[in-house]
C-alpha cells in the first residue's frame, strides 16, 4: 500500500496549495466556459492569497 509520508510544506506553500485547489473546484462548479473558468480561478486564487497574507500580516503584532 502506498503510504504518503515525509511530505513537508511551509505555511505559505500549504496555503497556496489549498487556495489553488479550492479555486479550481469553485471555478469548475460555478462557470461553464473554459475562458470564464480560467478567469475565475485566477481571480479567486489572487483574492485567497491577498486576504490570507493580509490576515497574517494583521495578526503579526499579536504573535509576540
Amino acid at each position, binding site marked *: *500500500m*502506498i503510504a*504518503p*509520508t515525509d*511530505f*513537508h510544506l511551509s505555511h505559505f506553500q500549504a496555503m497556496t496549495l*489549498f487556495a489553488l*485547489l479550492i479555486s479550481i*473546484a469553485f471555478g469548475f462548479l460555478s462557470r461553464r466556459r473554459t475562458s470564464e473558468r480560467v478567469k475565475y480561478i485566477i481571480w479567486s486564487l489572487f483574492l485567497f492569497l491577498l486576504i490570507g497574507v493580509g490576515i497574517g500580516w494583521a495578526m503579526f503584532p499579536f504573535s509576540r
Partner: protein
Amino acid sequence: MPDDTVTEATTAAAAIAVPPEHHARNEIFAFAIGVAGWLVPGLGHALQKMWGRALGCFLTVGALVFLGVAMRGNLFSSEGGDAFGMLGYVADLGTGSFYFAARALETQGSDVAHAEGDYGTRFLAAAGVLNLLAALHAYEAARGRKA
C-alpha cells in the same frame, strides 16, 4: 401581451400538465445523483455527462484528501466524543468513499503537534465540505435548475 408573461404562462401550464408521478420519479433520480456524487466525488456530474465538472471535482477532492493524509492530518472518527469531533467527522465523511481510502492510507496516524498536521486536518475537512457542495450542485442540476 408582453413576451415574459407569455413565457411564464406557458411554463405554468407545462408544470400543471406534467403528471405527479413524473415529478416524483425526477425527484428520486435527482436524489440518487446527489448520493452518487457524495459517494464518489464527481460521479453525480459524470452521470449527467458534465465531464469537465466531474473531472474537476474528482481531482480537487482527491488531491485535498491525498495531501491531507500526506501531511498527517487528523481524520475524525465517530468516536470523537465532543461536538467539534462530531462536526469534524461529518466534514470528513463528506468525501464519501475517499474517507475510507484516507483511513487506509493514514497508517501512521495523525500528527497535529506540527503545523503540517494541522493544515492536513483542514485539507481533509475542506475536501469533505467541497464534495458535499459538489453533490448538492449535481442534485440541483438533475432537478433541472440552472447549473
